């Protein structure tokens, strides 16, 4: 006699139960491993109490701030080479090995200041160690400090290092809590690694880690283990009941995929919030000025609007780099539709056929401008090109190639 088929709702229920049991088993396994296996290894070590550092107890070294509900709200920054910075620390030594886990809370706007954890080691008191922290939406997040190779020995001070593009950007530093290793802490650190905002990088187009750090547990591996165990559980259930439940297996796989996809959607949503903060309501020009390459854009627009002629020019770009360099390639892109040759540190050859300008981006030691001779010289002065400097700025210098020089430049 044929057994009745499972109803769709029953298949879904089986899949959800299997996934729930699978998740429970994996979580218990992790908690058990940390508690008993790692705990056994650390047997005999003194158990320390968590070290709680409320934001308001931090000492501001750079910048200004005020205590708000136990947190430290940064209200002012100090200008430095790296932008507007604020540093708040807690002084007092402790052993890094006693506190492999960090629980922290901070609240920033999307696209707001970059906040790093900073610490100083007794073994290298002159060096400041750091690692980036991400917004925790006013709650708490865990970080597994034990994975950081610089977290060892005696720590002299610990705190927050805040870098802002704009002095008006706000950040609230709620707390730092250093904790001994615990299963929940490890679990929390994995969750934080998967859900913390990562943002685009120039490498995003090539590959995507699903976590903050490359050495974090991959959410893909976790989802695969989670769904595989659920499938095994369904298989065991099918063997025991004698009823096939292939539909529930497919549902498990689809649900695990959707769960993983929600993590990715969360990242895309956070990225969009940050992008809105950066670009929304701006003209295209303003967007470029708010972008990561704004300095280069501003410089090239200055050249195009105030120095170069309206018609297209032939330009040789020189830069102290080999291969594909971001700055020099962006300069070429923003110079379009000007016609650029963008290779090398020195002008290409003794003759420059129909070249109008030479743009020296940044400092290029191989090339030297001799104002008295009115020439660019390279190869220790053995080669030269008659030019007129038409613009000089911190980003670079633009030289107009003199017509006679373009025809007869060569050995001096």
């Amino acid at each position: 006699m044929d057994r009745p088929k499972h109803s769709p709702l029953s298949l879904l229920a089986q899949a959800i139960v299997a996934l729930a049991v699978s998740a429970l088993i994996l979580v218990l396994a992790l908690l058990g491993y940390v508690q008993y296996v790692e705990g056994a290894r650390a047997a005999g070590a003194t158990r320390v109490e968590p070290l709680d550092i409320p934001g308001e107890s931090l000492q501001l070294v750079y910048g200004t701030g005020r205590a708000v509900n136990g947190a430290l709200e940064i209200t002012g920054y100090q200008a430095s080479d790296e932008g507007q910075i604020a540093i708040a620390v807690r002084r007092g030594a402790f052993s890094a090995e006693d506190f492999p886990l960090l629980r922290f809370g901070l609240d920033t706007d999307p696209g707001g200041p970059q906040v790093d954890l900073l610490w100083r080691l007794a073994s290298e008191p002159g060096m400041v160690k750091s690692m980036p922290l991400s917004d925790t939406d006013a709650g708490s997040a865990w970080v597994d400090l034990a994975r950081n190779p610089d977290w060892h020995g005696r720590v002299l001070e610990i705190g927050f290092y805040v870098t802002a593009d704009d002095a008006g950007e706000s950040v609230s530093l709620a707390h730092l809590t250093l904790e001994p290793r615990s299963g929940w802490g490890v679990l929390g650190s994995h969750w934080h690694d998967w859900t913390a905002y990562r943002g685009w990088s120039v490498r995003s187009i090539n590959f995507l880690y699903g976590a903050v750090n490359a050495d974090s547990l991959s959410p893909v591996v976790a989802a695969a283990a989670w769904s595989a165990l659920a499938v095994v559980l369904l298989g065991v259930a099918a063997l025991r009941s004698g009823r096939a439940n292939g539909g529930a297996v497919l549902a498990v796989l689809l649900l695990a995929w959707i769960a993983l996809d929600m993590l990715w959607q969360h990242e895309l949503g956070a990225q969009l919030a940050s992008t809105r903060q950066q670009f929304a309501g701006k003209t295209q020009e303003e967007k470029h000025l708010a972008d990561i390459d704004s300095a280069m854009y501003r410089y090239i627009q200055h050249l195009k609007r105030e120095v170069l002629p309206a018609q297209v020019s032939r330009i040789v770009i020189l830069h102290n780099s080999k291969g594909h360099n971001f700055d020099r390639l962006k300069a070429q892109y923003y110079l379009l539709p000007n016609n650029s040759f963008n290779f090398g540190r020195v002008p290409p050859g003794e003759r420059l056929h129909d070249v109008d300008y030479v743009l020296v981006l940044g400092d290029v030691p191989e090339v030297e401008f001799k104002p008295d001779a009115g020439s660019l010289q390279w190869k220790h002065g053995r080669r030269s090109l008659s030019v007129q400097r038409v613009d000089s700025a911190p980003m670079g210098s633009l030289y107009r190639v003199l017509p006679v020089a373009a025809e007869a430049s060569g050995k001096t």
Partner: protein
Amino acid sequence: MMASLSIPGLLVALTLPWCLGCIWVYWLLRRTGQYNAFVVLGQGYFLGVFCTTLVIRVWDLLGFALNFWQLALVLLVISGCGLALQRWRPGPILRRRPEQPTPSWHLLVGTLLLALIAWRHITLVQELLLRPLYAWDAWMNWAPKAIVWFYHGSLVDFVNPEAWLSGSEDTYTLGNSQASRYPITVPLIQLWGMLGVGSWDHSGVYLPWVIAPLALGLGLYGHLRLAGVALLPALVACYLLLSLPYLNVHAVLAGYADIWVAAAFCLAVCALYQWQIARDWGYAVLWCLMAALCSQLKNPGVVLALIVLFFGLRLWVNLKPVLEIALWVVVAALAMWALVSGFDLQIPLLGHLAFDNGIFEIGRFGKFELAYHAVGAAFVETFFVMINWHLLWYLLLPCACFGVYRCVVQRKPATELLPVMAAMAFVVVVFVFTGYHIAASNFVTLNRVLLYPVPALIFCIGLWFRRREAAAAELQLSFAGSSL
């Protein structure tokens, strides 16, 4: 650069090629009786975009300045010709396969998946429109050509740096010395958007990069439904494809060629599959066109186009299995002999083809030193650790086992998989046996090349969920086709 934007121009630039393509795909397929609206929309978008780039090339060749509305008029005339042809030569009435009623829970789950796809792509569109051009190769290799052509109103030549130094004032070169030789279809897609928008510096130019995966999804769904896959598994296949983070990244960080190559190859495989079933010439034309598009997008696309053409030819010739095996043995023997003794040939269109002392030379593609490189770890990491492909490669392991079981035990050879497996073999050979192993180890191009066969792979796996009666009908049609 900061010219005022033309919203009507942008809308026409986005929709006119799509309409044109749909009209002509419909014209091609309606006489076959084997189509649906999703196939027409999916294949139509890529055919329309391809046709637009060809019109721009011909227009420039004739010496006319590139003017958006004049080009749009030409596209409108081509669309009108397609419509007129359909009026004058009506095709047969569409043979609809009797559909089983779709259970309501299928519709419910399907709606949820569509909502997830919509949520994802609304996010992507907002991100794309807000952000200036971001992806590295987009502004280094592809967009500069379009910008220069937009400015000059003609397809000015791009040459290598040496030629630039000794060439005329009218030629350009790029910051990547290789990029001047890249095929020009992707810059032409960008140029068309720029002409429509009236500016080269607007994110709207890159909207086709979000539309392309959606059109691919429509095509995938349409072909699966046409093959007899039920609504829910066809939608699941679409969701799996359109939720892939790596595909999403190539949509939102727009401007690369790879998403177009992947789509053209997938739709060529879909058309090839449909042609294999019923041998309707409309599908033969379609897979030839998609292969041609593939070859015009990026250099690896030439190899993918050759793969499609080879398997199309194989289906057309339809040799008996014994004869085919004998032929493969001869080809393998000849290949071994050529590798051992070396060869040096001049092939028309391709150029110099030679193999000597472990170095393989293929015309304009350059020289490749063949040697084994251990890049397995990079493959494992991208397949199973990174989030690029979600759980796709984990799911492929049981799928591969099922495929072998289906092929060996159930004696159902998955011939539709052959072009995809050939494309996968191409990926493996390139990264394991040539200097490109570095680009695999540092992940610079590994995933980009893996993207090419992935949509087609999802199509092939989706086919395994055909209804039994559809599979049986297909088998009958296949036999009928093979006896022609």
